[in-house]
């Protein structure tokens, strides 16, 4: 029933091209409102940062709003706003993206400004110092004020070791403090080029119309042979169960977190990574999942419990489990209960009914996703940034339908092993 409900036209409307200078163009038509989402994605993220310069990819993302000769003095955001647009940018391990949402008529102006700052950024020390303060405040808000985020940083180091995924995307505080305009410009000149970028537009536009605009605004920018990321170090196996604890005087109750080293769509292929997604769903998505049923409803050892997988990365992804013990339940009791749920899944496998529920859920989410043009642009852009081309994104529903119980069970056996995991506890600081 659902198979036919996926809006075929919407999928067939997605097209992609490559400009002569190597820039990828992805267009996702949606004519329901006279609005477009314009995004430019670069295949560079925190994982490309040189040693000692953690945070430079994200810092540069902030500095990209400072100005060029044509659009000086922080005018970028003001011009977007004056034209009725909303814009921002974000940085991840594998990509950095800039976007504006505007009425269709303003798209050429957005493209002109985005193309301009791809190669013409100007920075001065006056820009650097306050903006570095902004980034340090961002780190204070998102990390240093969040006991759970501090635990997460420690666990990620333990999971990925020397691989750059072990570093926080925002960077380590002591390294952010030393970043300057020279670091930013060096990183910018190396990686910001059309042959390392994708233009993604979703909304009220047709492919041929966008292609003409793309050629006009981005087509003239010279490619840069250096703008290709280096091969990254292999992620080493963990080898033995690792435990990390973070005691924090602000923490009000213990929280359990576990990470297993897994794979990603790019590192292992669409099929194996989709089996990992489905495994995490069955284990811990929502109130019908195994972890929630067992820990929260039946045994009443937790107030919340769940699992997730991150598979949209260039290099190996991860599976996570979290739980908060119910008042009076000892951490070791909760952890034993979690281990038992995992062991049962690994030993006895999963049910057809569970597979069906996950498949239906994914296909429904796919339909729901077509209501939101910004999300569509995000999905195709983030996939491109982590090495997955539009044709593979469009193939995903098929992959979801064909993934078998056996594949899900075999990924459970492969990844849900203690010696492939980092277990973390956030603990209220012990009383002095």
């Amino acid at each position, binding site marked *: 029933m659902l198979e036919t409900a996926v809006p075929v036209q919407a999928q067939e409307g997605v097209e992609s091209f490559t400009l002569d200078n190597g820039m990828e163009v992805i267009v996702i038509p949606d004519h329901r409102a006279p*609005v477009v989402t314009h995004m430019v994605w670069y295949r560079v993220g925190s994982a490309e940062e040189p040693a000692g310069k953690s945070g430079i990819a994200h810092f540069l993302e902030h500095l990209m709003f400072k100005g060029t000769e044509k659009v000086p003095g922080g005018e970028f955001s003001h011009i977007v706003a*004056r034209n*009725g647009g909303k814009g921002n940018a974000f940085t991840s391990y594998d990509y950095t993206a800039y976007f504006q949402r505007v009425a269709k008529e303003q798209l050429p102006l957005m493209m002109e400004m985005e193309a301009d700052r791809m190669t013409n950024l100007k920075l001065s020390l006056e820009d650097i110092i306050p903006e570095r303060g*902004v980034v340090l405040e961002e780190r204070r808000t998102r990390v240093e*004020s969040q006991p759970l985020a501090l635990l997460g940083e420690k666990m990620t180091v333990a999971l990925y070791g020397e691989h750059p995924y072990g570093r926080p995307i925002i960077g380590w505080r002591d390294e952010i403090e030393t970043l300057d305009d020279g670091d930013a410009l060096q990183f910018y000149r190396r990686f910001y080029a059309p042959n390392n970028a994708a233009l993604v537009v979703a909304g009220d536009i047709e492919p041929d119309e966008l292609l003409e605009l793309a050629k006009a605004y981005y087509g003239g920018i010279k490619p840069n042979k250096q703008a290709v990321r280096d091969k990254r170090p292999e992620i080493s196996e963990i080898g033995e169960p690792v435990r990390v604890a973070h005691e924090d005087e602000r923490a009000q109750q213990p929280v359990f977190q576990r990470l297993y080293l897994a794979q990603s769509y790019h590192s292992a292929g669409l099929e194996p990574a989709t089996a990992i997604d489905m495994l995490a769903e069955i284990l811990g998505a929502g109130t*019908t999942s195994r972890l929630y049923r067992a820990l929260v409803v039946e045994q009443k050892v937790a107030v*919340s419990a769940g699992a997730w997988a991150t598979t949209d990365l260039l290099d190996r992804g991860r599976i996570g489990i979290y739980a908060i013990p119910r008042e009076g339940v000892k951490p070791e009791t909760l952890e034993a209960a979690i281990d038992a749920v995992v062991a049962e899944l690994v030993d006895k496998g999963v049910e057809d009914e569970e597979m069906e529920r996950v498949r*239906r859920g994914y296909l429904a989410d796919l*339909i729901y996703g077509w209501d939101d043009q910004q999300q569509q642009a995000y999905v195709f852009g983030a996939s491109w940034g982590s090495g997955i081309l539009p044709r593979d994104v469009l193939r995903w529903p098929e992959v979801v339908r064909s993934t078998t119980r056996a594949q899900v069970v075999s990924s459970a056996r492969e990844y849900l092993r203690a010696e492939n995991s980092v277990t973390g506890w956030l603990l209220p600081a012990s009383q002095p």
Partner: protein
Amino acid sequence: MEIQRIATPSGIEAWLVEDHRLPIVFVEIFWRAGSSSETDGLDGLAYMLSGMLDEGAGDIDSEAFQKRLADLNIDLEFNASKDFFSARIKTLEENLDEAIELLALALTRPRFDEEALERVRAQILASLKQSLQNPEIIASRAWFAAAFADHPYARTTRGTAETVQAIQADDLRDWMSRALARDNIGVTVVGDVTPERLEQLLEKALAGLPQKAKVATPEAAAFQAPGHVEVIEYPNPQSLIQFGHDGITRDDPDFIAAYVMNHVLGGSVLVSRLGEEVREKRGLAYSVYSYLYPLDHASLFAGSLATENARAGEALKQVRLELARMQKEGVSQKELDDAKAYLVGSYPLRFDSNEKIALQLSYIQREELGIDYIDRRNALIESVTRDDVFRAAQRLLDPEKLLVVIVGEPELSGAP
């Protein structure tokens, strides 16, 4: 976009935007009764009810109810705020009938089984504890407690550990039967459904509700703590500063002018005076903003920022300076033109998905702005003059009157 008005035989009115291009239906329902109408001593009742309504109804127990929603990929959510209780559905068209049936069952025959009630209670108690490590929640609670003293607006939607412990299934039933009625309801539906079908479904789902709501309407709430500064010591490297004072009601003739004024002052961190002075020039904060917050029985002007402890005094000083400057000078013609261009030009961005359309229409219903508001709204913004903004700033802003709550270990020397 055409908004149709639907009326069911039992007198329920709904707004419908029919759109068959995607097989999805969004439903937004609200009742004009929220945590401010709770029974005394049972703070958090409405919020707990919102957590209990999807925990089983009629012959379907909690597990079966959750499984049914999951199997049919229906998102059914209940929520409570100070003034409203709400229900929201997102469903595929093919499951709409079943989604409405589950809603009807939840609204008319909720089970409130002991097991589910204790589980949800434990979850709320844990979240209350968790919120003690969230500077924003700590600040917001203290701010409302000081601002509204004995008025129900002073309490938090989630209640306190003590009141949450006290709530029983009969309390939920009692409040629900008085709060969720047909004469205080608003319904918006957007998506793949015809008016005929919708009328039938709504009648089935909502005709069983009592005709009249019987909850106490709170009195008008006066702002109680002008000029008060409260520091809550908290071991954090950053100070969270929440500031504000009384505001302007949604139906005040100066509301739109005040809204434009606030946009220039602190409506967006990348493009506003506060953003420019606090973030861009001085690097004092990642996020800083201000907003108008009209409630049903009070109105507020508020804002927030977070900065390292050592610079808390400096950041707060900048906020006061900007309020004073706005109060004294108003806005320039260029600022006004830019603000209007943004507010008018970006309005269509709020309607580019059916989910957003449903949210917007529901908001327009709640604020009683009229079914034609979308067509009138940009002209209201366009007509604002510099004099209007100046008058609104004079009426609204007063840096001396700010109630400020700071959570952290702030150094305030140098602050006025």
